[in-house]
Structure formats: C-alpha cells, structure tokens
C-alpha cells in the first residue's frame, strides 16, 4: 500500500463530509438526545427535572425490563442462526446454474419486499384459531386433537414469531450471501475439482473462508435488526400472552405512549448500547481489514 499525499487525503475528507454530516445530524444527535432525556424526569404530566441515573435504577428494579431483555436475547439467539443457515442454503442453491435463475431469485425476495406490518397480518391469519391455515393443515393431516391456539401459550407465541420473522428475513440473508458467492473465483473451485476435492470439502475449504467477511456483515445486520424487533410483535401478539413476547423496543414504546419519555429513553439507550456492543464484537470477528486487504 503506498502512502497517500496530504492533498489526496484532504480531498478524500471533503468528499466524506456530507456522509459525516448525515451521521452527525441523523444518528449521533438523536442518540445523544435520547441519552440526555434519559437523565431527566420527563413525564408529560409531571414537572421536568434532572434525576441523574434514577431512570436506569428503576429499570434495573423492573421485573418486566428483565423479562423483555430475556425474551429479546432469546429471540435473537434462535431466529438469527435459523435465518443464517436457511439463507446460506438458499444462496448456495440459487448460485447454481438453474433454469430461470433470475425469476427464481426474484421470487425468493418477495417476503423481504412485504412490509413487516403486512406480513404480521398475513401470519395472524395463518395462526388464526378458527379460520387459519395452520389449524386447517393439522385437520387435513389428522394431526393432534383439534385446533391449536398457536399464539396462546408462551412457547407457541415465541416460535410462531420466530417462524414469521425467519420467513420474512431469510431472503435478505440469501441475497447478501449470493452477492458474496458471486465473488468467489470459479478457478479455485475448478482447481479443487482437479485436485479431487468433494463438494463438501470445497464448501468448507474454499467457499466458507472466502465468504466470511460477507457472512459477518449479514450476521451483523440480522442481529441488530432482530434485537430491535417491534413491528411483527406489535401486530401479531401485542406482547402477549401475559407479556411473554414483549421485546425491549415494545417495552420502551409503551413507556413513550404512557407519557414517560425519560424512562422510555433509558430503555432505548440500553438497547442502543447492546446493539453497539454486538456490532463491535462482529466487526472484530470479521477482521475486515485483513480480509479485504
């Protein structure tokens, strides 16, 4: 790598300025604003005053905060790996020279193009106790004893949400990984074939290592997205039954709605710090510099 001249660097910074300004105004300022608000008693019907870390202390004492945190983490831990594995499989299939590959690729993307609130409604119909597809399938296959109330139990609601989320976001993972696969040079595979490496060997020795940076990118996007899951839950379960599927962002939004902006901001800040921490871990794990350099 050759050294850049000072003039070149200055030019680069000028071109970066708009992006920097965008990040400052639309990302950093709101984050700092939320942090500031979280240090205040900012309730619509009470006088505003500085209370330091009181909101955070209350958060630590609130059982519902901990149960929402637990639910959110569990949701990330189950849904993200599922989406990554399925997405990788789909990407590998779509990378093969299949007939009407372009049309297939477009089809796979449809669930991703459906807005989350709409897909929530679709899944609500699928899980419906009386008229839903899920119970109709059980009936046709003569499985179980009568209809199941899918969203009525804690685990039922949890896995119903995971399934709906996986349906919607797996195509996104597949798309990103497909782009990564396109960058794996064909010569390496041909060479591997010449050397007598099996498909599985080539996958683990050639494809996977070269795919790693892009895998980490997909993982990063999905993890952060799953961490702040809101729309699907809002539509599908409303956080129920009995609060079992209340995610952190839903918990925070409920606080805003009830007029407690300080407390709601504290929830947002915790969520932000969680996402930031995970992002840092991923960026390190991705070792992007050496991977691309």
């Amino acid at each position, binding site marked *: 790598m050759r050294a850049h001249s000072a003039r070149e660097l200055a030019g680069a910074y000028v071109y970066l300025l708009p992006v920097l300004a965008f990040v400052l105004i639309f990302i950093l300022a709101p984050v700092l604003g939320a942090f500031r608000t979280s240090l205040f008693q900012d309730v*619509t019907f009470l006088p505003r005053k500085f209370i330091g870390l009181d909101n955070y202390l209350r958060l630590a004492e609130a059982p519902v905060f901990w149960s929402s945190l637990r639910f959110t983490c569990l949701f990330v831990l189950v849904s993200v790996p599922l989406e990554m594995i399925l997405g990788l499989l789909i990407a590998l299939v779509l990378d093969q020279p299949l007939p009407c590959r372009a049309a297939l690729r477009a089809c796979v993307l449809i669930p991703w193009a459906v807005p989350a609130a709409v897909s929530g409604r679709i899944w609500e119909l699928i899980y419906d106790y*009386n008229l839903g597809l899920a119970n109709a399938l059980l009936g046709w296959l003569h499985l179980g004893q009568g209809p199941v109330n899918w969203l*009525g139990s*804690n685990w039922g609601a949890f896995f119903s949400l995971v399934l709906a989320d996986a349906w919607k976001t797996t195509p996104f993972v597949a798309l990103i990984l497909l782009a990564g696969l396109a960058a794996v040079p064909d010569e390496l595979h041909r060479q591997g074939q010449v050397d007598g490496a099996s498909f599985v060997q080539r996958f683990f020795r050639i494809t996977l290592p070269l795919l790693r940076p892009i895998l980490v990118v997909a993982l990063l996007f999905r993890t952060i997205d799953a961490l702040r899951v809101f729309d699907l839950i809002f539509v599908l379960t409303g956080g129920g*039954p*009995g*609060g079992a599927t209340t995610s952190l962002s839903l918990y925070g939004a409920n606080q805003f709605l009830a*007029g407690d902006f300080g407390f709601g901001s504290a929830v947002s800040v915790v969520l932000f710090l969680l996402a930031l921490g995970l992002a840092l871990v991923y960026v390190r794990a991705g070792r992007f510099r050496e991977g691309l350099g």
Partner: protein
Amino acid sequence: MFRRRLILIALAVLVLLSGCGRSGDKVLSLAVGGAPGEIEVWEAVLANFEAETGIKVSLIRQPTDTAQRRQGLVVPLQAGQADPDVFLMDVAWLAQFAASGWLAPLDEFMAQGGPDRSVFFERVLALADVLQGRLVALPMNLDGGLLYYRADLLERFGLPGPPRTWAELVRQAQLVQEKLRPERPGFCGFVWPGAQYEGLVCVFLEFAASNQAAELIEGGRVRLNTPANLAALALMRDLIGKFKVSPPNTCSAMKEEEVRLQFQRGEALFERNWPYAWGLHQAPDSPVRGRVGLARLPHFQGGQSAATLGGWHLGLSRFSESQPRAWRLIEFLVSAGTQKRFALELGWAPGRRDVYADPEVLGRLPHFRELQDVFENLQPRPIVPYWSQVSTVLQRRLNAALGGGCSPEEALRRAEAEAGAVVERYAGR
C-alpha cells in the same frame, strides 16, 4: 442548466410560501378516527359547519387503532404544536392529557352561551370531563359494556331470557353449546375480549364491579388482591378452561372486533361488546340480523350489573392559535343536530342525553332506551394521569392468568405490587 436551476428555485419558493399560507388563513384542524364509514360522515358534518359559520376545518385522519391514535396526538401536543386545534380523546387518556396541561379549560366558553351542562350525563361529565374543578372536555359519544344475546336461540331452547347472573349465563351457554356443537363445531357460548390490551382491563373491571369490588386506586393505594377481584378473575379464567363456554383464543386473539365477528358469523350465543356492535349486527348483510337482543351484563350473586365507561371526548388544544373558533366547532359537534346525525348514520351512542329521547332516533334505534339506563350508571376507570402505566401492568398480569401462565392469585398479587410501584413513582413525587 440555468433553466433547470430556475425551476428548482421557483419550486423551493412555492413550498416555502405554501408553508406560510397555512398559518396565515388559519384553517382549523380536527383529528378524528379514520374508519372508512366514519370519515365520510365527518366530511359531511364539517361541510355543514363551514356552510353555517364560514370556518374551514381540515380533517386529520387518524388510524383506527386506539393506541396509534393516542401516539398521533401525544407527539404534536408534547411538542406544543398548534394543530390539531380540536381532537377526539379516549376517555382513558383524559386525565393524562389534562394533567399534562394540553387541554384548554372550557368553563368560560360554556358560561358564554354554550350548551347547558344538564344536556350531558351528569355522572359522565363529573367523572371524566371535569378534572381538578375545570371542564376540559365534552363527550362526543359514550361507550359501556353490554351483553348481546341471540334471542332466537334462547327461544329455540326454551330459555327464559338473557341471564341476570354469571352462573345463569354459564348454565345457558353450556346448554346451547352442547345442543349446537354437533352441527356447528366452532360455536361458543360466550365471547368477550381477553387479549392483552386495554379492553381486557375494562372487562375485568366489569366482572369485579359486578361482585361489589372496591375502587381500584383509592387514596394513593392500589387494592387489587381482594377476594372480590379474585373471584372475578377466577370466573373469567374458568369461562375458558373449566366451563369451556369461551374459546381458547380468548386470551390471544380476542379484541372487540374479533369478538364481534365471531358473534356475527352466528358462532356465539352471548357477546360482551360496546354499543357500536349493534349497528353492525343489524346491517343488511349480517347473518344475525333481527336475531340479536341487548341486555345489561350479568352480575355475581348479590352484586349489581356494571359497565365500564368508555367513549370519545372532544378536547381543545391549549396550543391552538384560534381557540374561540375552535370552541365553535366543539359546540357544533355536541349540538343536538350533529349528535343525532352521528347516532343515525353510525349508530354512535351520543354524549347528549336528549338525543336518546328523540322519537326519530328511538324509531330507528330502539335499543337506545336500554343504553340510556346503562349510561346513567357507568363505572369509570381510575381517573389518574398515570392510568395507562397501571393498565399496562394489569393487561399483562390478567392476560397471563387467562392464558394459564400463572394462577389468578399470583397474577393479582404481582399486579398489585407492580401497580403499587407505579402509583408510588408517579404520585409520590
């Protein structure tokens, strides 16, 4: 290149000017619910208002979901924005909005030739609209929990009439359900909203009040874990699990619309719902048209039937830049003529009492006779600014008890502790 730039500049100036224009000619704005049937009536009513007064009003069409409607108001009001000038509030938010200082007091306007206070339900006005001695809102339409029943089925199975106690309801529901299940496997005795949302709390308060339960919040103390409340919650749970007259998805899917649709499909004997369901049950394409009866909700042995006060109230924004004209809009909306129109066209239960005695209204909507009785004696939810925080706690714990996540005892014990913490947090300082 130069011409394109000129066009851009012209556009920018236009945008800026149109921004100025809006505040200049002061069109009033009114935020209402956006259900398809309602919005046309609102438009027609506002056209009347403009013809009568020359005041233009722009309609802000809000979502139909109550929580989203609130969000759509909390954000501009918290920011001190001048519009909407007038808006509709669910009765459950009134205390919060008033305590936040967002509502302009209406006492002076009322004194200067406004409608006489006695045209409204005294209890509703006293409990919901007068806060800290000031009138801050006026009722647009009222809601209260009612029991809808299938009159044709009660007659077919020789039952005397709608049940007066919960035990009677269970007996009738089980009997009819048993007879009808072979031909209609999805038929249920009693449907009511049990999902985790505000409606569940309303229903719980009705069950509890019908068992002579005490006030939920009194003197800064929450009293939830009492024998009366426990019996009420246990009954709600037993309706699903033990008596099996309410469907298993009561706790996960049932809100007022799901409840109404099941009853309207002909798949239920009894239904707990708000007054709006009547008009839809009696619509020309409704399978249960002409077979529905309306009664007060049942009660426990020795108790009295109770209905939770719901409904929508008109508020005038304190940040409105044209309050006197905004008041004229409110006055117009609560006038007997407009209220009658909403009753006739949408089946809304008016906030004014005199409409219930109107011969034309009674001719078209005979059930209003029943409603007036119910409305004279509505049970309010606790009138505190932090109600929604308390309600969130209740929604979660009550719903868990219905779904089998915990026992009614545990649900009430935990809810009392958590709601107590909420009260301490917001009322203590």
